[in-house]
């Protein structure tokens, strides 16, 4: 198995599903400004909060995982929006910049 396969969130989502785990998939569907991850990027989350992949390179994953647990619970997709354009954050080099919209859905 090559590196891409090992790290591919969609391949991992399928494997987790086969293991009988509850799985949610978060996808970047829109970006404005300098977003850290391109449209189409995935974060896969299981019912216990394990996750793989990224939608922002670490900036908003915590919030997305929290919402994903809700989505796994009730099966209703969620649309999340994050804006991280804080000038102070930019100065200390933490800012993702721009804004992103993330769609979170349950697999199954």
């Amino acid at each position, binding site marked *: 198995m090559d590196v*891409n396969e090992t790290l591919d969130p*969609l391949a991992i989502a399928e494997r987790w599903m086969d293991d009988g785990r509850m799985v949610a998939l978060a996808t970047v569907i829109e970006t404005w400004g300098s977003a850290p991850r*391109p449209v189409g990027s995935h974060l896969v989350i299981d019912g216990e909060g394990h996750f793989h992949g990224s939608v922002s390179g670490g900036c908003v994953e915590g919030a997305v995982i929290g919402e994903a647990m809700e989505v796994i619970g009730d099966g209703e*997709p969620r649309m999340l929006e994050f804006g991280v354009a804080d000038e102070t954050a930019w100065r200390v080099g933490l800012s993702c910049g721009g804004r992103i919209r993330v769609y979170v859905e349950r697999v199954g």
Partner: protein
Amino acid sequence: MDPFLLRKLNTERAARRAVIHLTDLGDGRDRVIREGDPVAGPLGDALASAFRSGKSGLVEAEERSFFLNVHLPPARIVVIGAVHISQALAKMAVVAGFDITIIDPRTAFATEERFTGIDLVADWPEDVLATRPLDAYTALVAVTHDPKIDDFPLSRALATGCFYVGALGSRKTHARRVERLTALGHDEAEIARISAPIGLDIGAASPAEIAVAILADIIASLRRRPLRGDAS
């Protein structure tokens, strides 16, 4: 997301087929569309355009909002000839993020020792390509100098529409190659797609430098390729 669709999506991606995962953001229903699947109307136009550009994004159609996640096969390089240039090219290609396969029926060249950790097949291109066909997301690099080995894959690459086709050899060697490919039924425009002499003209001298020139040439072809379906 439908679990069946997740499996289908992964199967298609593993088989190097271009697919789009289409989600209706209104009701969450989704579909997997293969390149060439007929979809009518403005949504069909948007899907066709997304297959060409490779860009994922939102589309408003039929008063609904859709998200198109485009999955094009990752670009790969198939090298005909397990020669010195290929040894350097294999290492560089991996660093640059390409999958690479080396094919050479000459077992003296195609040894594990010379290509440690690289996907190497010591067999005739005719046989290898029968089970592992070329596609539009593949660059074909022919560097054996031997028509018996190079010509078939070059001809296949032109017929398949590989995004890059390059062949090593002097202008004189290439002139004879053009004659042979013409005899095989390829027209002038097709044959003109072959990069020969191979690689960007950077005055490369050593095998490693030639590998740099070839890799740069491949990257230029990949990033500047005309959208599929466009007149070029």
